[in-house]
């Protein structure tokens, strides 16, 4: 085992316990052995590596439950290892990878493959999400029970909505019996088909085919009705519009077992950022109007949206250096998630502890993971971050194999200094 590690002189932010204040943390054998709040740690024994945080933030390692890599099948985009390195550089210590790979993660051997590869990489923790339907094709159920046994954390068809309501109903009902969470992207495929942007003045002027915001609401309303019918738990995959938030709010008020995510991109950008057809800003769901962005920020502040994800989706130049309509959607985000999120702390829009909850204890609790908290006995997943340091994002210098970051050229305030996963230092700036 590595030497014990003491991180002192830091501001601890631990949403799980509600503590935000000065303190220190001691780590040994991969777990947190002591958390000192407001006071110094006990006397350090001889062989301890001491890190003086210099007043920086010490947070639980981030948990990002929506990450794509290219492994297996498209390793030129991103491998599990390169994604894990990017995660470590971004202070993310747990990632959940999406099942829409080649082959699709729709049976236990592929789940097992990912878990084994992740163990070999030995950086951050990697868990797979399984497909809800075979091939993510939306027609026949995948082996949900066997994949649950093999270690997948939830099931989803990733970007592809399950259009057939009968199939989706069965997925919800069946998954419930295995205690398996189902995530679903709310998008009406007929309204969304062929769209490259959100419908509205901007898309009209740019001559881009658009999808109306109602497409998100229509599918969400169907999903909520099926949740009511089956009693299954649903994770709404990326709510990005004000109109869908209304539906979500009503469902939560009625006590339906629903949680929701949004992406850091939809919190940070609006459709105008597409500018002169910048394909790094082509996303799925597409960037929305400023009114929608503001509504999504408010929903994170109020807790209506529970979780923020990076929606990390690597795309190499050959998929992005194309006319806008033909370019692949998606953006890398593991390395920029934390500093981009801190913007709302700097703007005093959202209290720091609430902001950090959306990327630590909230996703960890939903996934049933022992992660996302600073407590004695918890796995030593930590990130040390100076929230004040400005960082100019240069996409070419990102750790990810693909460089498609919409933050390219932007200055974010907040720099990850050190990332610890299971007691090992996996990143140091």
């Amino acid at each position, binding site marked *: 085992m590595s030497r014990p590690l003491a991180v002192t002189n830091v501001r601890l932010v631990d949403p799980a316990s509600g503590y935000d204040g000065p303190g220190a943390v001691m780590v040994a054998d991969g777990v947190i052995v002591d958390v000192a709040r407001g006071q110094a740690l006990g006397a350090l024994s001889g062989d301890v590596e001491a890190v003086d945080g210099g007043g920086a933030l010490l947070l639980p390692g981030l948990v990002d439950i929506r990450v794509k890599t290219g492994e297996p099948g498209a390793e030129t985009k991103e491998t599990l290892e390169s994604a894990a390195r990017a995660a470590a550089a971004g202070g993310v210590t747990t990632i959940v990878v999406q099942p829409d790979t080649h082959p699709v993660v729709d049976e236990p051997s592929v789940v097992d493959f990912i878990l084994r590869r992740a163990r070999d990489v030995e950086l951050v923790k990697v868990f797979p999400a399984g497909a809800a339907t075979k091939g993510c094709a939306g027609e026949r159920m995948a082996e949900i029970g066997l994949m649950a046994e093999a270690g997948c954390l939830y099931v989803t068809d990733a970007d592809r909505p399950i259009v057939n309501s009968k199939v989706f109903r069965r997925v919800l009902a069946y998954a419930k019996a295995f205690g398996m969470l189902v995530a679903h992207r709310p998008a009406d495929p007929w309204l969304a088909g062929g769209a490259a942007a959100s419908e*509205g*003045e901007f898309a*009209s002027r740019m*001559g881009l*085919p658009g999808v109306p915001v109602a497409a998100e609401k229509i599918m969400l309303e169907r999903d909520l009705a099926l949740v009511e019918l089956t009693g299954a738990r649903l994770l709404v995959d990326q709510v990005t519009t004000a109109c869908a938030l209304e539906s979500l709010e009503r469902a939560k008020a009625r006590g339906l077992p629903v949680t929701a995510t949004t992406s850091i991109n939809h919190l940070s950008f609006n459709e105008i950022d597409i500018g002169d*057809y910048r394909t790094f800003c082509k996303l799925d769901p597409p960037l929305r109007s400023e009114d929608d962005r503001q509504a999504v920020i408010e929903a994170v502040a109020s807790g209506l949206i529970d979780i923020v994800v990076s929606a990390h989706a690597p795309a190499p130049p050959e998929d992005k*250096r*194309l*006319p*806008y309509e033909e370019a692949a959607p998606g953006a890398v985000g593991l390395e920029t998630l934390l500093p981009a999120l801190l913007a709302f702390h700097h703007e005093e829009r959202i209290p720091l502890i609430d902001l950090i909850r959306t990327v630590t204890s909230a996703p960890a609790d939903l996934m049933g993971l022992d992660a996302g908290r600073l407590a004695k006995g918890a796995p030593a997943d930590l990130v040390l971050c100076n929230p004040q340091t400005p960082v100019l994002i240069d996409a070419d210098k990102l750790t990810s194999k693909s460089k498609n970051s919409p933050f390219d050229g932007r200055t974010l305030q907040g720099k990850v200094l050190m990332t610890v996963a299971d007691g090992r230092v996996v990143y140091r700036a």
Partner: protein
Amino acid sequence: MSAAPPGLHEVLQRTFSFPKRHFLSVLDLNEVEVANLLDLADGFVALNRQTAKKLDLLKGRTLMNLFFENSTRTQSSFELAGKRLGADVVNMSPRASSISKGETLIDTAVTLNAMQPDLLVIRHSASGAASLLSQKVTCSVINAGDGRHEHPTQALLDALSMRRAFGRIAGLRVAICGDILHSRVARSNVALLQMLGAEVRLVGPPTLIPAQAERWGCAVFHDLRKGIEGADVVMMLRLQLERMDGVLAPSQREYFRFYGLDREKLACAAPGVRVMHPGPMNRGVEIDSDVADDLAVSLIQDQVEMGVAARMAVLTSLAARLENAR
């Protein structure tokens, strides 16, 4: 420059600095630049009507036509414009080139750029394709239509046709009718005509009007008769036949009944109204032959003629900024 008529000669002598490397969007232009381009084009109209039509303003230059979408009219218009100015003109048809073998737009552009063209004219089915290309090549890029986005030389030639017919553009009421949703011609025309002080209206069924088009500063009408009421110019747009038959309009005959321009509906417009169409026309679908072929009303033939002159004006202006320009 022996062939230049006095009008053209005068225009060419004027100092007209056109500080653009590319010609991508009407929004890149200002009113003075447009006025200069139109004056210059007027001169070229006179030249084109002479027996000796050739100048040497672009002598030694290479113009490449890169048309990913078929267009006999626009391509030959650019070809003639280039040749009449003395340039060498090459037409690339992607169907015969490696584009069909999966090469990307950028790769093709970089390849062609290595052949050292001076001017690259591009038409592509994707909005923003011309802008993307302009970021990757060293020559001047001219947008000859990118998806639903813009067709700036069409707007220029339309403005030229109107200015010559009415003597002005400011104060004209122009109704653009038909498939606005898919039309780059409409987008470029709205921007240019509004800049020049015209009142622009959009007319079409709701399925063919872009979302929030009313925020373009145009009144939107779904009734053709009301939309063209008092209009000085009625500009009809082409509706692709595959978009009818129940997709965006129920049928050809229903479309013609409500949105096709015939003599009876045209009577709602202002006296002296002129009818325009960027071509190619679907006769009996969006426009009745009776109207299209009436030279007292129709400017459609003029538009084609103005197209060559307007493109000559654009090429000349851009060439003045090229490296080693005389």
